[in-house]
């Protein structure tokens, strides 16, 4: 390894910390009672573990410096990871038992360094073509793209608020939140919708980026395997935040879509086109079965009508109350 390469790998760690972490997010999930922190506690915990998985993958393909991660970074992350893992277990937030293999079981989980480095020390590595500089450069480029896309959502407050709420709030709290009639002032109602849009956009772009990565090396069979392996590993890392395909979340997702449509309701073909497009987008990201789509579409249309009726009733009520009362 050249001196320059090592410097780049060290610089990449600094880059990672700056881009991924936000206001100390690579430390323990805060025990503060602040409602905003509480509203994102599960997602902050998930983000911390996810960031650690990104670190490991980055070491594996030579994007990060292994020694520096082991000696300088991981020791300061241990307590945070333990606390984060406890939060995730307590909230029953994980859909897969194989997502993360470096946290111990039990009431006081700990970070297991040997497990973290285990896959990196295997003789047969996943990426077996790293001596080809052109291939390596492309692989690093793909990894960087994934990392940058993720950096835009992983600790982004509105995305975290949205995901935690859609995933773990009670039905009652969820319904109040999406209609904006919750008493809580912990965040702007619009943040919630922005979080939804961010998350959907992230999933769509990830899907497109993954497809393009393969496309660009389709003439090099030796590279395709590595790109597919990278793709598979990235898919596993982000799998826990792709919660929209979980059964109870799917329904909420369609309801939120119909609620947003009711807000921007404007009778006419343009709006109908938007309705169809938003439905298709949600059906795609929730991985809804194609056979179920006619029923889902019918429910979606009915929900949207109900939401529009409700919005119009509220508008009429405000109008009848008059401006002075509405101001109160």
């Amino acid at each position, binding site marked *: 390894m050249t001196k*320059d390469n090592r410097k*780049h790998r060290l*610089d*990449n760690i*600094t*880059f990672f910390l*700056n*881009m991924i972490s936000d206001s100390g997010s690579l430390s323990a999930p805060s025990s503060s009672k602040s409602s905003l922190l509480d509203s994102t506690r599960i997602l902050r915990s998930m983000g911390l573990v996810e960031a650690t998985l990104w670190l490991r993958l980055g070491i594996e393909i030579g994007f990060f410096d292994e020694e520096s991660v082991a000696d300088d970074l991981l020791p300061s992350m241990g307590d945070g990871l333990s606390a984060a893992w406890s939060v995730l277990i307590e909230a029953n937030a994980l859909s897969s038992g194989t997502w993360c293999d470096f946290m111990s079981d039990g009431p006081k989980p700990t970070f297991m360094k040997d497990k973290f480095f285990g896959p990196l020390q295997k003789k047969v590595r996943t990426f077996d073509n790293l001596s080809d500089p*052109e291939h390596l*450069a*492309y692989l*690093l*480029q*793909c990894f*960087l*793209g994934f990392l*940058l*896309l993720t*950096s*835009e959502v992983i600790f982004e407050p509105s995305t975290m608020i949205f995901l935690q709420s859609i995933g773990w709030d009670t039905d009652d709290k969820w319904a109040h939140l999406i209609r904006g009639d919750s008493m809580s002032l912990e965040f702007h109602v*619009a943040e919630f*919708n*922005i979080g*939804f*849009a*961010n998350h*959907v*956009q*992230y999933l*769509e*772009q990830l899907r497109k*980026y993954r497809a*393009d990565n393969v*496309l*660009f090396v389709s003439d090099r069979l030796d590279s395709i395997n590595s790109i597919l392996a990278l793709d598979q590993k990235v898919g596993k890392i982000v799998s826990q935040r792709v919660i929209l395909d979980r059964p109870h979340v799917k329904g909420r997702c369609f309801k939120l*879509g119909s609620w*947003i*449509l009711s*807000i*921007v309701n*404007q009778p006419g073909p*343009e*709006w109908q*086109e*938007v309705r169809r*497009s*938003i439905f*298709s*987008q949600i059906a795609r990201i929730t991985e809804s079965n194609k056979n179920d789509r006619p029923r889902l579409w019918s429910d979606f249309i009915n929900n949207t009508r109900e939401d529009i009726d409700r919005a119009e009733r509220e508008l009429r009520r405000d109008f009848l109350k008059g401006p002075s009362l509405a101001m109160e």
Partner: protein
Amino acid sequence: MGQYRIPKAIPEFRKSYALVRADQSADTMVVFVHGLGGKPTSTWLDFHRLIKICSVNYPWWEKCDLFFYSYESLRTPIGVNAQRLGKFVDYILSKDATGSLRFPASSGKSHARLIFVGHSEGAVVIRRLVLDRLNKIEKANSHKRNLILKAAKADIILSSQLRLFAPACMGTNFSSFLGFATSLSHLVSAIASSFLVRNELLPNSPVLRPIESETENAHSKFQQIPCFPAKVLFGDHDQVVYTASYKCDEIDYENGQDHFSICKPDFWYLRPLEFVS
């Protein structure tokens, strides 16, 4: 395959970052400014890969360091964002605490050439910035033409060139909330349409109108200053902004592209690479 670029975070400006030549051989800085509700990577990611893969056909990019500016685009007024963008450019050209240039160019000095690439609202922010910079220079030089031209020549922002994808300079089409007919960003658009900046981007708004008149005036008054006329590219399926621009601009249209895809190159659509250069 082109040369490797090193990623560098610029945390002083939200999630802005740079991809700079490892061998410090660039002489041009390209500053990418996303649009309403956008983000630097989700808007410009396709440039990262394409300029590297297609470097043989587009060698011009090999001389460039790329800067991806991140800003709050929904609630922060355009004037404020323009001011911050100016600070961002100044920051890139500045020295750190040790006296070293933060981003040295091939000359060992700072970059000699700047190209702004804006999408949608980003284009408006850029145009406000160049006008503000001119106003500042005019005042500092007591409105004396020769002094202004001399100062403008030395100012990298006023010497910059503008490449605008689907600029919202003549206003957005979402006065009715639903000027959106693209697939990927329906949700983003529907949600974004309810935010403050939406009003600033309505046609003839008190923010857009002065930018148009001041730009046209500045161009007719100072033809030597290159940053007032822009190269503009719209998709023929754009239903988010009015597909028109200023008299001084050079406008073109691309078949089959919409408001969002217009600035996203791929193997079958390499025009953005050519357009910026």
